[in-house]
């Protein structure tokens, strides 16, 4: 039953470009997919270690910028005579560099939050993201500042002598994002189901008790931060190579807010939560755009959010699980009572 359900999901996702037709929907799907990846990484911190990272977009921006710069090539000048010149590298190098750099920043943030939890962690992460936005804005010789990095090359397949081509357009990018999302899902799922994941949940639920039974909570907070950073960096890198242009706005606070909404609405601390939340808040605004006058759109959007938070405070996925459990129990009860009746007859 469960396997059939997953199979159906996969079939829908894989065949989507065939029946979606209009390329605009595919574009929305790709952007939604990228944000789902970022939300999944946020969920690892927020939902499993319990730390709200309000500057989560920093990893997204770092992934985007590092990936773009490495694939475009760049020049770093130290004083008048020394310069580091990096010629343009293949896109996959940039992709890995983006992931690595974001993971490294995840390590730094995790280390800094060594003693700060809760509200302090929120402030540290928020300031970090804002500082990085200012760096991207003002380090014009490297990042082009507000002029943006343009002509970022798309992903390319280069098998020498056999085939080589650039993966322009929506269909290839859709599959790239789908693979990346699948990979991220598997990584997070395996992590939270393991000893490390249980240590993270222990940190979220009761830190004093966790340390009293020998769990080095800081170690696992840093680990979660690195993995979340790297995955979010991957999302940023995918974004950069798909859109082809990035400016310091990739560090905008509003992106963090979007990810948090996706996680909270879907159900934080559940594996499917960010996916469900991401699908709803990725497609819903587009659906509204086509059917409702603009002044109503935001009212409906906000109203829906308030309604969900009020009625399903734990998020959609936990609520559905609860309903499913009740339904199944009722069905089982009915079945057994019918059996008893049959025996009596």
């Amino acid at each position, binding site marked *: 039953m469960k396997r059939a359900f997953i199979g159906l999901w996969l079939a829908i996702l894989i065949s989507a470009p065939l029946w979606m037709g209009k390329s605009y929907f595919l574009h929305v799907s790709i952007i939604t997919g990228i944000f789902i990846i970022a939300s999944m990484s946020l969920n690892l911190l927020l939902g499993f270690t319990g730390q709200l990272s309000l500057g989560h977009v920093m990893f997204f921006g770092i992934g985007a910028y590092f990936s773009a710069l490495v694939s475009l090539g760049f020049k770093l000048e130290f004083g008048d005579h020394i310069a580091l010149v990096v010629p343009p590298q293949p896109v996959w190098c940039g992709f890995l560099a983006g992931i690595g750099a974001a993971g490294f920043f995840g390590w730094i943030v995790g280390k800094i939050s060594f003693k700060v939890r809760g509200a302090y962690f929120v402030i540290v992460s928020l300031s970090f993201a804002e500082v990085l936005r200012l760096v991207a804005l003002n380090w014009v010789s490297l990042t082009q500042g507000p002029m943006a990095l343009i002509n970022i090359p798309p992903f390319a397949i280069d098998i020498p002598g056999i085939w080589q081509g650039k993966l322009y357009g929506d269909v290839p990018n859709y599959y790239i994002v789908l693979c990346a999302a699948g990979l991220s899902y598997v990584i997070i799922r395996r992590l939270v189901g393991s*000893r490390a994941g*249980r*240590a993270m949940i222990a940190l979220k639920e009761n830190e004093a008790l966790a*340390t*009293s*039974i*020998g769990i080095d909570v800081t170690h696992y907070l840093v680990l979660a931060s690195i993995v979340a950073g790297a995955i979010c960096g991957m999302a940023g890198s995918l974004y950069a190579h798909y859109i082809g242009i990035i400016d310091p706005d990739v560090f905008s606070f509003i992106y963090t807010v979007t990810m948090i909404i996706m996680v909270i609405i879907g159900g934080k601390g559940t594996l499917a939560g960010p996916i469900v939340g991401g699908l709803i808040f990725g497609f819903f605004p587009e659906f509204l755009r086509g059917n409702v006058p603009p002044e109503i759109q935001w009212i409906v959007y906000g109203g829906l959010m308030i309604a969900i938070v009020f009625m399903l405070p734990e998020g959609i996925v936990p609520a559905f699980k609860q309903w499913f459990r009740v339904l199944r129990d009722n069905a089982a009860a009915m079945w057994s009572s019918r059996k008893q009746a049959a025996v009596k007859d």
Partner: protein
Amino acid sequence: MIARTTLLDVENIAIRFGGVQAISGLTFSVHNHELLSLIGPNGAGKTTAFNAISGFLRPSSGRILYRGQIINGLKPYQIASLGLVRTFQKTSLFERISVFENVLIGLHRHAQQKSWESLLALPRVAREEAELRDRANEIISFVGLGSRGGGRAGALAYGEQRLLGVGIALAAEPQLIMLDEPVSGMNPTETIRFMDMLQKIRQRGISILLVEHDMRMVMAVSDRVVVLNYGRLIADAIPDLIQKDPEVIRVYLGQEKKIA
């Protein structure tokens, strides 16, 4: 008499909170395979001593040695990973997850898998997970919560929550377990059952340091009793002698009157 090896040595520790001297010059030790009780009136410094030993507080002077190794200054998780595990006075659980998962988290120290091995889903990880589940079930039935494994920890009755707290600590495989008022809030039947469990814990070769107010239980289960008053040690003897100690009687009853 068997040769006694000491497990825990508390040597002359002092703890100050601002101007309040919570503990001064406290010295005692726990021997291997012993059940030592730490008693005293409210505010005597029992829980403070517990917090110091388990690394949640730092003594301002003195030393604490566990198996000959100085442990004051270590972090709580480091002390726990040496095999010295505590429970808390206020019930402390991972409340929003199931009883089973609580114990599974407690097995952290026992599990060997590295994070990257879990990411690659190596076969040995799956084997270990299966083994951990068996072990968790075994501990849950050991503390008498056999039928409650699937329920939410926070939904247990109060006495059961205290049992689960002990179960989590046992999962961390202590050689010395420190129990902070484990039977407070339990009814007499539950207390008697808990006393049986203490014996079973000792049969596993685990030493116990107990803080408790229930004197009947303390006198029944302890090998030795240490009495604190205003942060000072006033008696250290076997239960029979403690019950006759005039200083202890004075502290508990407040008057130098003859006790019938």
